[in-house]
């Protein structure tokens, strides 16, 4: 982090609608040129947060800053943001070109560029050259999404806000478009706040993600951080498939805790920052890919319930004394099997002190 203030900063922001609190005491900072994603289940406050940044809603408490400047009371039209909505909100009474040019009515164009040139340039950028005269309703969903993107970018906003821009598209198209969105974002080096409920999309596209729940942030970090080192049980279960275990610590030795889970004692690798003592209640998680049949330092017997062939891997559903577990494997086991994992593949998410 340099001395430059973050491009976008929220500090202690709360938004209440009557009795319900949509966002509570939320703080985060997005650096210049960063692709920052808010991810969480529906109703977690991610869209409200984006609307607070855009200026469509005013926070009940807290401060929103753009490049260090408090924007309280600044209307959306003066915030220099570009917004893409889930339904694109294309103006159906205007052509594609007029849609893209809409924001140029209210801004000065850079160095003598004409409006038409700017529109053509943006349609080129989103891979829709020559579509200016089309009627937005005649475009496919993916094309509409890109027009919305071009329209938002045309007036050269400081911050791009994308509110679930791909959730109305099919899975295949979504994957292609997110590569394109990312390319455009890098090309323009534009600070971007992205909202999605799709954790896979969030991991694939972002520099950093904030996992949200009930109006607050559970964890902020790089996709790798969030995936490998979930800070809470919620993050562990929300981001990717996971097996979550909880039990009492019976011994701590050489950075490895022995945890009693059911009939088994499992070895869990501890990081240096976590002071764990005997008697604590530990919650930890192990990715399905880290569970192995017949191997691992910690082992227990489980029953194979069913298997889903997913192509790259097969997801096996296991039952271990009433606990449902997932195991990723290429060879599908059957019946009663010995399952295990290495201590370093276990990640502690919660420590409840005795």
């Amino acid at each position: 982090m340099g001395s430059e203030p973050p491009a976008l900063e929220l500090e202690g922001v709360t938004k209440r609608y009557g009795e319900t609190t949509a966002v509570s005491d939320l703080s985060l900072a997005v650096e210049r040129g960063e692709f920052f994603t808010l991810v969480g289940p529906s109703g977690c406050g991610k869209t409200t947060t984006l609307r607070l940044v855009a200026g469509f809603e005013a926070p009940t408490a807290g401060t929103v800053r753009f490049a260090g400047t408090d924007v309280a009371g600044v209307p959306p039209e003066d915030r220099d943001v570009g917004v893409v909505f889930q339904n694109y909100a294309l103006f159906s009474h205007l052509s594609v070109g007029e849609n893209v040019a809409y924001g140029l009515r209210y801004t000065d164009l850079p160095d003598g560029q004409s409006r038409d040139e700017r529109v053509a340039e943006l349609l080129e950028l989103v891979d829709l050259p020559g579509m200016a005269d089309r009627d937005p309703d005649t475009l496919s969903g993916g094309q509409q999404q890109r027009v919305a993107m071009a329209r938002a970018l045309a007036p050269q906003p400081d911050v791009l806000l994308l509110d679930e821009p791909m959730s109305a598209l099919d899975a295949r198209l979504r994957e292609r478009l997110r590569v394109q969105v990312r390319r455009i974002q890098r090309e323009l080096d534009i600070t971007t706040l992205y909202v999605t409920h799709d954790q896979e999309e969030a991991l694939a596209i972002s520099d950093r993600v904030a996992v949200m729940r009930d109006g607050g942030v559970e964890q902020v970090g790089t996709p790798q951080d969030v995936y490998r080192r979930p800070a809470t049980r919620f993050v562990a279960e929300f981001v990717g498939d996971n097996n979550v275990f909880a039990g009492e610590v019976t011994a701590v030795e050489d950075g490895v805790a022995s945890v009693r889970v059911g009939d088994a004692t499992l070895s869990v690798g501890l990081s240096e920052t976590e002071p764990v003592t005997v008697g604590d209640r530990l919650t930890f998680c192990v990715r399905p890919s880290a569970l192995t049949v017949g191997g691992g330092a910690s082992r227990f017997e489980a029953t194979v319930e069913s298997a889903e062939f997913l192509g790259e891997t097969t997801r096996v559903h296991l039952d271990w004394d009433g606990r449902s577990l997932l195991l990723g494997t290429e060879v599908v086991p059957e019946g009663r099997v010995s399952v295990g994992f290495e201590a370093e593949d276990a990640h502690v998410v919660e420590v409840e002190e005795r």
Partner: protein
Amino acid sequence: MSGSRTGRDSLPETDASDAEGRAHRVRDAVERRAIAAFAVATAAVLLLVFYYPVSRVFVDAVLVEGAWTLRVVTSVLQDPFYFGPLARVLSGESPVAVARTVLAGRADLGIVGFTAYQAALSTLASVALGLPGAYLLARYEFTGRGTLRSLTMLPFVLPSMMVAVGFVATFGSEGTLNALAGALGLGQVDLLYSLEAIVVAHAFYNAPLVTRMTTAAWESVDASAVETARSLGATPLQAFRTVVVPQLVPAVLMSATLAFVFTFGSFPIVLALGGYQLATVEVFIYQLIGDFSYAPAATLALVELAVSLSLMYAYLRYEARQRTRTRGARPLPRRPLRPPDWSPRELLPRVGLAGYGTVALVVFALPVASMLYASVSGPTGLTLEHYAFLVERQTTGAAFQVRPWPAVRNSLVFGAGSLAMALPMGVVVAVLTTRDYAGRKLVDAVAMAPLAVSGIVVGLGLLRGLVFGVDVFGTRFVVDGALAIVAAHAVAGYPFVVRVVAPNLERLDPALVESARALGASRVRALLDVELPLVWPAVVAGAAFAFAISVGEFTSTAVLASQTGEYTMPVAIQRFIGRRLGPATAMGGVLLVVTAVSFVLIERLGGARDGL
């Protein structure tokens, strides 16, 4: 398929079950053809009491005293009395010279021109009175908003003669407005029998239509679109102008077109509030019929039909081009009507709305209230004598005098009769127009045509074609006046049954009927056992509609009543209106109760109300 039954039929069995099998087969055959049979019956009724009489009217225009001629048509078209300056152009004068006299303000518009002029003024008034209402309903939240929104449908069922009585009771020389003015020491005003009265009464009818259609368009504006515009640099006003207005304009234009069509062909209001001095085409046709001048009447009816049909065509073309975009639309949030603070920005629009509310109260509520008040007030204070007068079995009075009890009785009997006719017709047409097949559009157009044809023409056609008698293969075929009125009402009312029932049928999952058919039900059984039970509220609403239309119908009834001696409440009101306001307002009260009950039924059970 009905596999089990055919299977049993093929077995050699005893006589008893053979007879049973035959009965089954007959029933199956009847059921299989029931819808077709009903369709044929409906078509026959339409042909007999609508298409034949209406075409008879138009033949009247060119078949004068047994000879085919265009003489009457051309003489009407070239008569400045009807067509004003246009007639002079049609009769060969230089358009430039004619235009010069028009611009100099020395040309009389003629009857058609005046009709268009008053319709244009009425349309402007309706839009002016309707738009603030749409703003209020679409953008503000308050208690009673939903009720107010559904009340915008009320004019569809309010009998125009009742409204006319209300206006007389409000704006007449002894009306509430003059009573108020007198109490305040102001001079007498008489707004009746003036263009203003007609225009305001037309606005009473059509402003709610403008409000209704514009509100629907406003509510379908996507808040994301407005927010996008804001994020792209538009101020709230600029976003309104560039994003919201373009989405409202089609609705305003369409409702204005409808208002123009309705007011161009308005008859009862003009007759009751304008009199013959301010005759529009319809009123003049009525007058011509009274003088037995059928050929010019028919020509004028043709002209009127041409104007309204071409406007309706333009309307439908335009409507078809308007795509309804509902995908993911999030409506604009409504503001509370109570201002959150006392800043001018919050206060100003609400003060405007308060002013609008006052005007709306005078235009919409005062006439109804004045009518009810007048119906229970006499020279000595409050009284029920006007209502008592309605049920007296008057024994005295000359034949030409209007007796109230027969009017009340006829209205209810005719209402029930036309309901019995309109309901099956409407349901059959609804079934026929909600299925996909080639020619469905044609069936729809043929079935809905009665909506576009003036009651004057229908009434005149029934009178000339059926009531006066017609020779069919040497047999004289005469229809009773009462039956003709019932038929006219049924034809006027059944399109509304279709309009209420069809959208509800359309919304049913086709798999329901298919499941029933797969389980062995015939098409008509599926309709009776599955579809109609599911849409019964709409059927009841359609019935209420048909009844209300019949009870309130004036135009065709007036034409038929003029020559048959049968009359209904609206006709009686029109005859009472200038002479005895008391009974007229009491009848208005009865009509109000009937239509209010119908309205509540339609409103509660109608379902797809925006389709109207």
